[in-house]
Structures are given as C-alpha cells and as structure tokens.
C-alpha cells in the first residue's frame, strides 16, 4: 500500500514536470539568425534593407527618447558656462590648453552622469522587482520559497553595486578635480590667477554633492 502511494506521488510529480516542460517548449519560437557578413545567403536582401533603414533613421534624427519614462537619462542641455572674461589673444598654446582641459572635464561629467543613471535605473528595477516578488510569492508555497532565495541574491547584488558605485565615484571625482586644476593652469596662462581657489572649487563641491550616492 505504501509502495503504491509512493509510486502514485512519483507519477504525479513526473506528469507535472512533463506538462510544465511541454508548456515551456510550446512558448518558444524558432529563431534563425542571419549572419551579416554572409552575402551568399538568401536573406542578404534583409541585411541590405535593414542597413538602409538604419542609415536613414540615424541621418535624419539623432535625438532619441529613453524607452521608459521612469528611466534616468543624462541631461546636458543646461548651459552652465559663465563669463570668465579671459582671452587667449589667439595664442595657440593657450587655446590648446583650454580645449584639452574642457575635454577632460566633459569626459568626467559624462562618466558621472552615466554612473548615476545606471545606479538610479538599477535601484528602480530592484525596488520594482522586490515589490513584485513580495506580492506574487504569497500565492503559492513553492513560489514563496524560491522567491526568498532570489530575493537574497537580488539584495546581495544590489549591495555589491553600491560598493562599486562608491569606488567609481571617488575615482571620477578625483579625475574631475585633476581636470579643474589643469584648467586653473590654463587660466593662469591667460592671466587669471588663482581661478580654482576663487571659483573652481565651487563647481567641484557642487558636483561632489550632486553625484554622491543618495542612500
């Protein structure tokens, strides 16, 4: 009797697994990837046509919105330039100095903005995933157990992300300060002494606060 009950349970479990596997198999699609260098393929026309579509779109419009309205997007539209009233008087070395230091400052602005957006988007995703999982896991005991393990993994990865953010933040802020010091040198060449002490440090502290991890 006990043997019969055990065999029945085993059969039920196997049937459940089979039907789940079949459902998963039914849900899939058959994908045939077209290798783009393969000009002998019948699908070469697809590749050519797709190239033209992409070229037309890219040529016509380089401003694209983010996929999700909740997604963080770096914003560099605000004009932060200030009237410094210095001039290089067409001195080539002076112009080069300014171009180089502006380039470096913009590089670190870009990286800091990217860092913050990656972090904000990850935080939003994590919060939504945790909320979704907490709500759905109560429906079935097995889902609840599986969810707890997934939840631990999500939070562990999030903590790692926070540590990585902090390290990269320190590195980028160091680079930004170095670039501002270089700009200070350019200002000195152009006749503006002690620019960093008078003005540059204000920008540095503004950026320090703006990109500090909020949590």
């Amino acid at each position, binding site marked *: 009797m006990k043997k019969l009950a055990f065999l029945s349970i085993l059969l039920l479990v196997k049937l459940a697994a089979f039907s789940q596997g079949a*459902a*998963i198999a039914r*849900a*899939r*699609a*058959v*994908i*045939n990837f077209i290798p*783009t260098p393969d000009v002998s393929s019948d699908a070469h026309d*697809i*590749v050519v046509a*797709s*190239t033209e*579509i*992409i070229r037309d*779109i*890219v040529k016509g*419009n380089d401003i*694209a*919105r*983010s*996929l*999700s*309205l*909740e997604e963080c997007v*770096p914003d*560099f*539209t605000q004009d*932060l*330039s200030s*009237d*410094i*009233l*210095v*001039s*290089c008087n067409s001195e080539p070395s002076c112009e080069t100095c300014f171009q180089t230091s502006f380039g470096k*400052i913009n*590089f670190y602005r*870009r*990286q800091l903005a*990217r860092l913050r957006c*990656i972090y904000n*988007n*990850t935080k939003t*995703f994590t919060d*939504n*995933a945790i909320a*979704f*999982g907490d709500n*759905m896991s109560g429906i079935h005991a097995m889902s609840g157990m599986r969810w707890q393990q997934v939840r631990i993994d999500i939070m562990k*990865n*999030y903590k*790692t992300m926070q540590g*990585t*953010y902090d390290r*990269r933040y320190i*590195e980028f802020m160091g*680079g930004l300060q170095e670039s501002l010091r270089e*700009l200070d040198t350019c200002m000195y060449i152009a006749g503006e002494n002690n620019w960093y002490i008078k003005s540059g440090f204000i*920008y540095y502290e503004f950026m320090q606060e703006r990109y500090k991890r909020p949590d």
Partner: protein
Amino acid sequence: MKRKKRIALIGFLLLLVFGQLVAQPFNLDKNIQPQELKMTDFKKGDSLLSGKISVAVIKQVSDTAYFFVRGAGIYQQVILTASNRKPNQKLDIALCKESWNKPNRSGVIDNQKAYTEQFKTEGSFGIRVISKRPNPEYQLIVWIGDEPKKIKMENAFANKPKIKKP
C-alpha cells in the same frame, strides 16, 4: 588615454555586477522564457552605422513569443524594426523595460507595414510579439549604435574675449 580606456570599461563592469538579474524584464512566471537576440559587430569603423546588430527571421510556434536584447548604453541609439514575412498576418509587438505586463512602447505589424522604434536605454529590454493566427513568420532587426565619441554637451565653463574699451 589608458586611464580613459580603463574608466570607459567601468560602465560595462557596472552592468556585469547586476547583469544576471537585470538581463530581461523581471518575472517569476516559468512559462515566460524569453530568448536572447544575440548581437554581433556591424560595420565597425563606419561613421554612421558602426555598432552591433541582430538580424533574425522568426517562426513563432505559439501565440506569444518573448525576446530580450542586452548590451545597450544610455548614450547609444537603439533602432528596432519588425516586418512580416507572410501575407495577411497581423502581429502585436510591445517593447518592455521593467515588466512584461506594462509595455513601454507598442505597435502593430500589418501586411506590408513595418514597425520601427528608435530609443535609448541602459542595459537590456524585452520584446513581446503576439499573433492571433497560428505559425506567424516575421523578421526582427535590432541595431545598437556605438557610443559617440563626442556627445553634445555645453561646456561647464567658457572663455570669452575681453571687451575692449574704446
């Protein structure tokens, strides 16, 4: 330059830290098994088209198919086009970032009409295709452009010529 290259990789590393869990819209439904559309290098060095592309012809065996794409960056353009390969076929297509149940963009592929979307996003996103007729066949093309070397941004500072007194 070496430092810049090292720093440029950091964005990629940040994604790897969270890559496993954010590779697709999040869901606990075992029946939703999104398939990855693998990206390959495309027109490297071309000033306009350099990037990665996935060109796929798909024969769907169920009414709903799920796909996902990885490797997009917030400074990179993404273009997706979808078109029919069979006549009299109508497909509902949706692009999803956070959840399969809340599409961020959607459209219809109807006969000769192709569906095209252009956007920017960080990391990955999902594509859901629903067909009311059995065994649809269509093609999906996803292109992710390289990050531009120069991004339009106002300088934080500017130097202007001195105003000469008369």
